[in-house]
């Protein structure tokens, strides 16, 4: 994964709450066996609406999406994160995120920035005309109008994003610990190792 430090540019002022993963990428697009190419199905039902933000020329290739509460609720499909990436979105700002989506976003180097409702509304206003700047290092979202909103992020996730860590590689460095856990679990709960014949 490439390191992530800053995201800057226009932001889709989308704003809707409870955006589920079926809206981000409908099921019919999930038949792929690769990660790429999902932008064409992203927000399909929203894009069918007249004057939707995703087809407005001023937001073309915007790297940021601003949404309402509980963004990414619903299924665990990582295709939702891949679809955003394929659209060029590398940060989402919302009052809250579903737990599974924020995990998937993180694994794909997408910043899921949670801010209070009032801050999100202010950024929606700015986004209609001006770019937005997210700085992961100092954990702020700023605009050219002196807005400055601080956000929280899990320190483990922050470090991984800044360093562009390969998480599996990192875990495999703890291979000895995993092996010794397996050895003691095999004694404590031997029934879990029974042969699982399918």
């Amino acid at each position, binding site marked *: 994964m490439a390191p992530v430090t800053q995201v800057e540019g226009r932001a889709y002022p989308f704003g*809707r*709450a*409870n955006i*589920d993963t*079926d*809206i981000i990428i*409908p*099921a*019919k697009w*999930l*038949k*792929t*066996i*690769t*990660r790429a190419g999902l932008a064409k199905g992203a927000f*399909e*039902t929203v894009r069918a609406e007249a004057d939707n933000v995703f087809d407005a020329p001023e937001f073309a290739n915007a790297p940021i999406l601003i949404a*309402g*509460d*509980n963004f990414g*609720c*619903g*299924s*665990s*499909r*990582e295709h939702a*994160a891949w679809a955003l990436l394929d659209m060029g979105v590398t940060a989402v700002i919302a009052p*809250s*995120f*579903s*737990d*599974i989506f924020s*995990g*998937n976003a993180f*694994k*794909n180097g997408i910043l899921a920035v949670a801010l209070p409702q009032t801050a999100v509304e202010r950024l929606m206003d700015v986004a209609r005309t001006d770019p937005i700047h997210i700085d992961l290092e100092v954990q702020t979202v700023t605009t050219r109008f002196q807005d400055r909103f601080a956000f929280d992020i*899990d*320190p*483990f996730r922050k*470090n991984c994003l800044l360093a562009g860590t390969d*998480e*599996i590689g*990192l*875990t*495999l460095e*703890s291979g000895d*610990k*995993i092996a010794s856990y*397996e050895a003691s*679990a095999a004694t404590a*709960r*031997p*029934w*879990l*190792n*029974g*042969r*699982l*014949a*399918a």
Partner: protein
Amino acid sequence: MASRPRTLYEKIWDEHVVERRDDGTCLIYIDRHLVHEVTSPQAFEGLRLAGRVVRRPGLTLAVPDHNLPTTRRVDGEGRRIAIADSESAQQLAALEANVAEFGVPYIDAVAAAQGIVHVVGPEQGFTLPGTTFVCGDSHTAAHGALGALAFGIGTSEVEHVLATQTLQLAQSKTMEVRVDGALGFGVSAKDVVLAIIGHIGAAGGNGHVIEFTGSAIRSLSIEGRLTISNMAIEGGARSGLIAPDEKAFAYLKGRPMAPQCADWDAALAYWRTLPTDAGAAYDRTVILDAAQIGPNVTWGTSPEDVVAITGSVPDPASFDDPGKREAAAKSLAYMGLSPGTPMQDVRVENIFIGSCTNSRIEDLRAAAAVVGSRHIAPNVKQALVVPGSGLVKRQAEAEGLDRIFTEAGFEWREPGCSACLGMNPDKVPPGERCASTSNRNFVGRQGPGARTHLLSPAMAAAAAVTGRLTDVRELMG
């Protein structure tokens, strides 16, 4: 640590910590992993590109379910019928190639045990109390009904589990959802979980693991509990645990992948230590009175949009929150409903009895009991019954339930996810309405433009025979 009272969640968590990092993140060991064809191809591809192997192939079990058509899978000569949709066929072929290459146990598309991952897991005894249990599917929460810490993961995490048998996780907060009292006549587990989601909201459990407690939950069968835990995710919680008890142990005993002989005795002794200790604290507790819960349906496009079947479509103006008001208005426009319409006046053209929420034998029995010798209403164009697994299907056929359904005008199908998410050919046509026992009423979930009302299997059967959303109690003896 031994002296501090702990919740069921904390006990399972503590038992699975491989490594604790300074920032609070833990490396958690994963005991059980289910894989299906939709969320796994990119994970296996990732392993292949990095030259990695599956660390413990025997702890993963793969089953295809999402894409498979629910029409006949073998022809008269016993040959497999190829999937017509080329992308679905390719996804199934990818799964078959991946399990062969990486040595993962596999239940194939025509095996008797094939079914929806979350039906197959408990049924095979793959799901066990006190285990950490994951699958690239959000309804993995279901397995919490047997006391497994079970949750849905994304494809990168699937890859992580395959490669390392662990996940990097931060501990969740805990939320107790207690339902006390006796359930009323005609009220099922589905009505209870819809009531819970209506109460806490679709984001109510975000950041939390729910434990369902109380006498009403304990009184449910394992099938009913699976329905409850299954929908924890619709309330925002990644997991929905229920303390394992004698009912759970009786359910598991003798299942093909459950422990046997001395292992069984040792497991049982351990499982009995799992329930939450007296005096353990939850971060939040929500209490519902079972006596207040009646048959429920959804009216909108979020599972939190719940109303009693005796109620009416709400007026968006009645919501205090401006965001909710706007969302409700959008939902009603999509659903083609106007405020104040009694729910029982809403006519339906489609019936779907199936999905990992409600496709087990008890669900089919409940629906068949309501159907009885009745026929589906003339305005119902499509009525599907899709058993959760081949074993459920076989059991239902042995009990003659299939004949009750087919004589009433239902289609009796092969097991799979089917119209729950419309990846296979089973869909609800645009603009049409479906009384569905599945778990999500999202925009387009059952097909583009489809309008979904979530309800219990008995209520779906009632809607089928009357052609409109119906209070099942009026049809019950």
